[in-house]
């Protein structure tokens, strides 16, 4: 399965530096560098060897010499960035030797299909990079796995105490109620095309919604990929194949960028919804002209972020991207060692 054993890439640094605790792992502006193996985690530019946590564009980029990721992430990258050469698959839980005594283990992160935390082990020291993650159950991907480590490198996209995501069933209930109340209109849901869209569809199905769900063209291929990975999404059709009347009383999914774009003019009297953790804040929803905000996120909310740090209980927490100040403050208030990493290239995607 493409597992590399006994890699021979030597670390470029002298042994005296290498013996300092955790000196083998080094945050750089464009990614986290595993120095002895010369491997990068989610680098924002092309490198000879990369470990990729998941398929979102700000973590997964094309052009690396070798890309090590879960099979599903590799499939997503092949679809989105045409990454085929140098793809090395790593199953969840399988310890992969990446050279110079470093092993990497991909563990479920619960973010999107194929998403992983990466556990790095070297000289008895354990470091976890979460990538993006959430704790709430999601029918489209494996549940986050709490794993003990010394350094926990966490995301902080929703790292403010105002962000608490309600149970998804409540939000799906709102969506179905709006649909039932507007039989002549349609509900247009803005959802990120990788992960969010499929999760919303799967949750709609779980809530008993059996009708055709109409998709923007940009979502078709990813839906098929999820189906191929065993995630049933039910009857999906393309908006471009429908008449206005066919779409009355139905739910339509599109990438957030299409919500107020010319594309939406073909829809019957759309009520604009958006599935995103940002919808927790009224101003954010109003700014985007959202009439039906659905607080649905694929990221950990404040309570999940803080509870996860407490459960994993690392010696030290490093915070990669998002609202790191507030999470740092929380660590300080709870007597936990923490530092913020200034990584570039991660965005507040339309989550």
């Amino acid at each position, binding site marked *: 399965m493409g597992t590399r054993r006994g890699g021979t890439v030597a670390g470029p640094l002298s042994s005296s530096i290498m013996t300092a605790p955790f000196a083998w792992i080094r945050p750089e502006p464009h990614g986290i560098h595993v120095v002895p193996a010369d491997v990068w985690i989610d680098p924002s530019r092309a490198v000879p060897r990369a470990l990729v946590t998941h398929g979102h564009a700000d973590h997964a980029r094309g052009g690396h010499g070798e890309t090590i990721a879960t099979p599903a992430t590799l499939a997503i990258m092949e679809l989105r960035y045409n990454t085929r050469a140098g793809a090395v698959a790593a199953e969840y839980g399988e310890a992969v030797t990446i050279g110079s005594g470093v092993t990497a283990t991909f563990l479920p992160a619960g973010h999107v299909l194929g998403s992983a935390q990466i556990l790095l082990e070297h000289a008895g020291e354990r470091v976890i990079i979460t990538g993006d993650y959430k704790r709430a159950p999601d029918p489209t991907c494996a549940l986050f796995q709490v794993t003990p480590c010394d350094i926990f490198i966490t995301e902080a996209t929703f790292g*403010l*105490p*105002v962000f*608490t995501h309600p149970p998804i069933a409540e939000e799906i209930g709102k969506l179905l109620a709006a649909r039932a109340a507007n039989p002549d209109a349609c509900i247009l849901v803005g959802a990120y095309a990788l992960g969010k869209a499929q999760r919303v569809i799967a949750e709609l199905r779980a809530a008993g919604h059996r009708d055709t769900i109409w998709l923007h063209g940009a979502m078709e291929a990813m839906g098929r990929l999820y189906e191929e990975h065993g995630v049933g999404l039910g009857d999906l059709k393309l908006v471009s194949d429908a008449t206005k009347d066919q779409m009355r009383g139905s739910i339509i999914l599109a990438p957030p960028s299409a919500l*107020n*774009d*010319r594309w*939406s*003019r073909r829809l019957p009297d759309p009520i*604009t919804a958006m599935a995103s953790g940002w919808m*927790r*804040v*009224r*101003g954010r*929803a*109003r700014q985007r*002209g*959202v*009439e*039906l*905000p659905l607080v649905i996120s694929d990221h950990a909310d404040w309570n999940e972020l803080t509870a996860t740090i407490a459960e994993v209980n690392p010696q030290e927490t490093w915070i990669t991207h998002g*609202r790191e*100040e*507030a999470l740092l*403050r*929380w660590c300080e*208030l709870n007597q936990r060692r923490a530092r913020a990493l200034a990584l570039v290239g991660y965005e507040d995607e339309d989550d």
Partner: protein
Amino acid sequence: MGNAGLMEAFAALLDALVYTTSRNRKLALIAAYLRSAPDPDRGWALAALTDGLDFPAAKSSTVRTLMKERVDPVLWSLSRDFVGDTAETASLLWPAPEGAAPQDDLPLAEVVARLAALTRASAPRELPLLLDRMDANGRYALIKLATGGMRVGISARLAKTAFAQAFDVAVEEVEEYWHALTPPYAELFAWAAAGGPAPDLASTPRFRPFMLAHPLEDGEVDLADYAAEWKWDGIRVQLMRTGGVTRLYSRSGDDISATFPELLNVLRVDAVLDGELLVRGSAQGGEAGGAASFNALQQRLGRKTVSAKMLKEAPAFVRLYDVLLLEGTDWREHPWELRRATLEGLMPRLPASHFDLSQLVEAEDFTALARIRDTARAEAIEGLMLKRRDSPYVAGRKAALWYKWKRDPLLIDCVLMYAQRGSGKRSSFYSDYTFGCWDGDPDVGAELLPVGKAYSGFTDAELKQLDKFVRQNTLNRFGPVREVVRQLVFEVAFDSVHSSKRHKSGLAMRFPRIHRIRWDKPAHEADRLKGLRGLIRD
């Protein structure tokens, strides 16, 4: 709504209104709430939505202090900065107690009563007891209710319309009763919702809905049937006195007495009068006209207190159009001619310092009247009013009774500079246009300065063309705004132009709208700022 009327239902309504931009959907939401909520909750909700409630002991600072005691100050300020609204941040961060009592037994009326009973000393103790019983949406509604400023875009007019829609009554009637009643408007609901008698308001000072005019599009009227008077450019007001109390109402029925205190002690007869509020000056109708431009009046609008200096520099007076009630007689059913004679008879009893009569404009025939109308521009008057001599005074806009015959608009050629996305149905279109005039000769490096903004005056088909033009000629994007190549000329119609310190161009247009799209005209042939300045009549 299972528990409509309770605090939770009110919070849900408020939340839905926050996200709704369509006027019709707003109306439907409010109407549905008013139908299902019990008394007196729905009355309180109505008052809250139209800023009719005030709880002086509950301040935004009270809320901030409560939060400081409960949330780490660093986490609070990081959150507050991100959210941008104190009430919302507090609603999200309030630590709900373990095993909190469910909120669905809490009527809005009880919340209102508790807020009204607050003092500065008791608020820090009592507010938490309420906040503890609610979820985040409920807390948001509570804090907004307590500290004022709902900001959900509900004008009094919209609320009245929703009320009329909910109970299938005439909005004019709602308007007439509304302003005479106080929250929670028990008599109003008893009448409209429960089929009770109309509220007895004989001795209450109250607003009577205005009679309004249709625009005279083309066509003419026979001056044997219609009288003409100037359409003055101030604000339409109703001045009324009863039981020794004088009140001044704006066109929307708002009580604006406090803004114009000089008018509250000058009416000595019990009457309800219709007129134009103006300030002294000479811009409108010259020295004889005696009224300043609308711009001068604007300095006095919207103030809660008025300085002595302002009273001296811009004294207000009312130019009377009509009489509705006089000393116990309701004249509204009588023909305009009779009301006019009654008004003329009343004039000697009113102090000339604060009242004059809107003079009739005499003309031989319609053509002659049209010539007179054309002089209105120099006089800075909006146009003419045509009133059927036998028209009763009826609320609202009734066909063929009164017409407004505005002078032709001014026209100027401007260049499109920026376009912004619209809202609601227009949210996928760049439909709001900012345009400018040249500050000199464009052939020797002059620049365009924005002079106005318009979002009407074009057809749906033209909107599509404009949208396409904007997308294909974008220079820069700033959020929902696009800067475009300075190429497209608009012929812009507007009513008047005034000097303004707020705009870089130093002027502001009134009612600008797109008159024609000049696809054919080169941008450098658009008008200069100098020409536009020449039209200022301040």
